């Protein structure tokens, strides 16, 4: 037991420090942590929870690979084996699926947390971009994951996904240039490895799911964590020291001016790290930070295990290329997209997501303000602005959805309207425009880009929620609106 801690159990601050930087895993942390970062309200542990969920999916995923076989029909049978025959197989599959879902939820919440505390600001812009990449890869992992069982959900998701990849053809066809320039067709061909959905496609998605995307994810996670260190830990307000109050207990205080500088060693700019500055409201990472992280890890595991025991991962009938399910629905995190895609494949599946990602990526470069960094809803009018944006965000998306559901859209009024108009002007694009306009108005009104960013982010979050809820609960056979599934017509 003692050797586990090579050098004995850390009892003094000094041995605790060596404990941290003498270990490759703990070395990711700094030796001391600011107490602001340790407050629950600073992060709610969301980043750590995401990481914990990733580790759980990684471990269970590797175990599932013992039995899963990536070939149509055989794949379906092997999932059945895992579910009904393999000891603990059902539990592993359930927890894999639930941890994946938890990861999607926490990664979105973690992003919202970073946004609302303005943690993306200088010098953390690059890490914000890394975080966005992690969101995209997480969704990619989820998507490729539910394709693998080769049941009805999987088959039609691949079909629809591949055709979304091909949807730039909606534009190239309308312009009549598809013969010469067909990026959509190429994307589809490369995804499917064939022009029909079959074994080639399954093995490609399998490779993406178990190899390419996890490696990419692990790489970006490493950069993401490393950047946290390099950017000076978590974002905190300038007066964080005063806010957390004086430190209690005895901690070493360095009061002497430094005798040497580290500049010569070309390691750090300026003289030295914390020497001569006092403790700066920091505490040793061991145990304070590590126990917090351990708690989040345990809580996440507990939640995943509980969910896995309560509810089984679904497995529908074997893929049938003749008959899609009615309604054919994606998992919840894509139902907002499915609702958008039901207006136009290209704008909903590629155009609007690209615009949203570009907008998110630009936020740190447009918002050069410093007021309110590290604080929830910091900046001009903070909470009030968020509340107002919430109203606008929900209002606009609900209004436009109820309009289409009630009155239909262009095609039904003008049957001969050109496709390009349908692609360009549909409820999805109008909603995006409305949100954009509102955010520009906020920039003007508060003469602050942060206000505009806050308005836009809140609106898009609301739009995502409204579209997802409508797609999940209010769409029935043929994607018709129903108040409840009990009103669905029988088959």
């Amino acid at each position, binding site marked *: 037991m003692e050797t586990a801690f090579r050098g004995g159990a850390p009892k003094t601050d000094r041995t605790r420090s060596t404990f941290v930087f003498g270990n490759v895993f703990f070395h990711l942390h700094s030796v001391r942590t600011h107490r602001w970062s340790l407050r629950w309200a600073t992060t709610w542990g969301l980043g750590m929870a995401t990481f914990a969920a990733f580790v759980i999916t990684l471990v269970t995923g590797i175990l599932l690979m013992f039995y899963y076989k990536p070939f149509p029909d055989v794949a379906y049978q092997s999932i059945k084996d895992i579910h009904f025959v393999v000891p603990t197989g059902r539990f592993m599959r359930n927890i894999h699926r639930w941890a994946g879902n938890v990861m999607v939820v926490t990664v979105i919440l973690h992003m919202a947390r970073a946004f609302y505390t303005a943690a993306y600001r200088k010098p953390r812009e690059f890490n914000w971009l890394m975080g966005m990449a992690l969101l995209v890869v997480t969704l990619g992992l989820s998507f490729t994951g539910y394709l693998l069982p080769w049941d009805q959900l999987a088959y*039609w998701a691949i*079909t*629809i996904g*591949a*055709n*979304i990849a091909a*949807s730039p053809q*909606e534009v190239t*066809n*309308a312009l009549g240039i598809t013969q010469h320039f067909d990026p959509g067709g*190429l994307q589809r*061909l*490369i995804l499917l*490895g*064939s*022009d*029909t959905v*079959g074994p*080639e496609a399954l093995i*490609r998605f399998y490779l993406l799911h178990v190899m390419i995307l996890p490696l990419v994810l692990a790489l970006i996670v490493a950069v993401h964590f490393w950047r946290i260190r390099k950017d000076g830990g978590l974002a905190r307000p300038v007066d964080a020291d005063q806010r957390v109050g004086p430190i209690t207990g005895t901690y070493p205080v360095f009061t002497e001016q430094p005798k040497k500088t580290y500049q010569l060693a070309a390691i750090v700019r300026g003289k030295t790290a914390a020497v001569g500055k006092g403790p700066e409201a920091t505490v040793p990472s061991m145990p304070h930070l590590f126990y917090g992280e351990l708690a989040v890890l345990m809580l996440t595991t507990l939640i995943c295990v509980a969910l896995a025991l309560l509810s089984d991962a679904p497995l529908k009938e074997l893929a049938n*290329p*003749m*008959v*899609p*399910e*009615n*309604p*054919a629905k994606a998992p919840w995190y894509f139902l907002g997209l*499915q609702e958008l*895609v*039901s*207006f*136009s*494949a290209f704008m*909903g599946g590629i155009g609007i997501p690209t615009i949203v990602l570009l907008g998110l990526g630009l936020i740190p470069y447009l918002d050069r303000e410093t007021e309110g960094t590290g604080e929830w809803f910091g900046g001009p009018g903070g909470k009030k602005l968020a509340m107002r944006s919430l109203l606008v965000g929900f209002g606009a998306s609900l209004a436009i959805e109820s309009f289409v559901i009630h009155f*239909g859209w262009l*095609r*039904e009024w003008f*049957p001969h309207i050109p*496709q390009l108009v*349908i*692609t360009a002007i*549909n409820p999805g694009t109008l909603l995006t425009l409305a949100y954009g306009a509102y955010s520009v108005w906020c920039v003007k009104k508060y003469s602050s880009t942060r206000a505009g960013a806050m308005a836009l982010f809140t609106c898009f979050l609301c739009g995502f929620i409204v579209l997802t809820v409508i797609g999940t609960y209010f769409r029935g*056979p*043929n*994607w*018709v609106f129903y108040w409840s599934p009990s009103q669905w017509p029988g088959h």
Partner: protein
Amino acid sequence: MPSPWNASCSARIGGPMSETQKTGRSRLDPEPVSRRDVLGLMSLWAAGSALLFGLVGMLRLPKAAVLSSPSKRFRVTLPATLAAGEAFTPPGRNVAVYRDEQGVYAISRVCTHLGCIVKPTEEGFECPCHGSRYDHDGTVTKGPAPRALPWLEVKEQAGTLYVDEGSNVASGTRLKV
């Protein structure tokens, strides 16, 4: 040009080139590069570009030269009782075949929106995935589908009917039988 090799570095320090001489030179009049450096850099560039070209070539790997897709032409035998305007779906094919007074015709049942399989109904066709609707002749009447359902080529050879899913014909084309 700074050299990555220690040997030439130390050679320069101990060599005839002094500090003052070095600062006196401009970009247009650079210090001479030794033969060793030239050869070294050239081999680096050669190796680098070879790797790059190799990589670009490898990127072509995911796109197969021959696709493993099944044949798109198939034989149909229409049931004798098939009424005018009633759809017949050959087993295993996503095609609706019709017969009326003017002849036989086939319409693809693959939704032009995102590839779900549409269902023939009284009014035409309906798609379960995002609610596109089509007329009897495949024209879009509602929803996001960008194009009409394509009409497929029907041929007769030695008394048997063949439909080719891979070749489209103008809407309204019927084969007299």
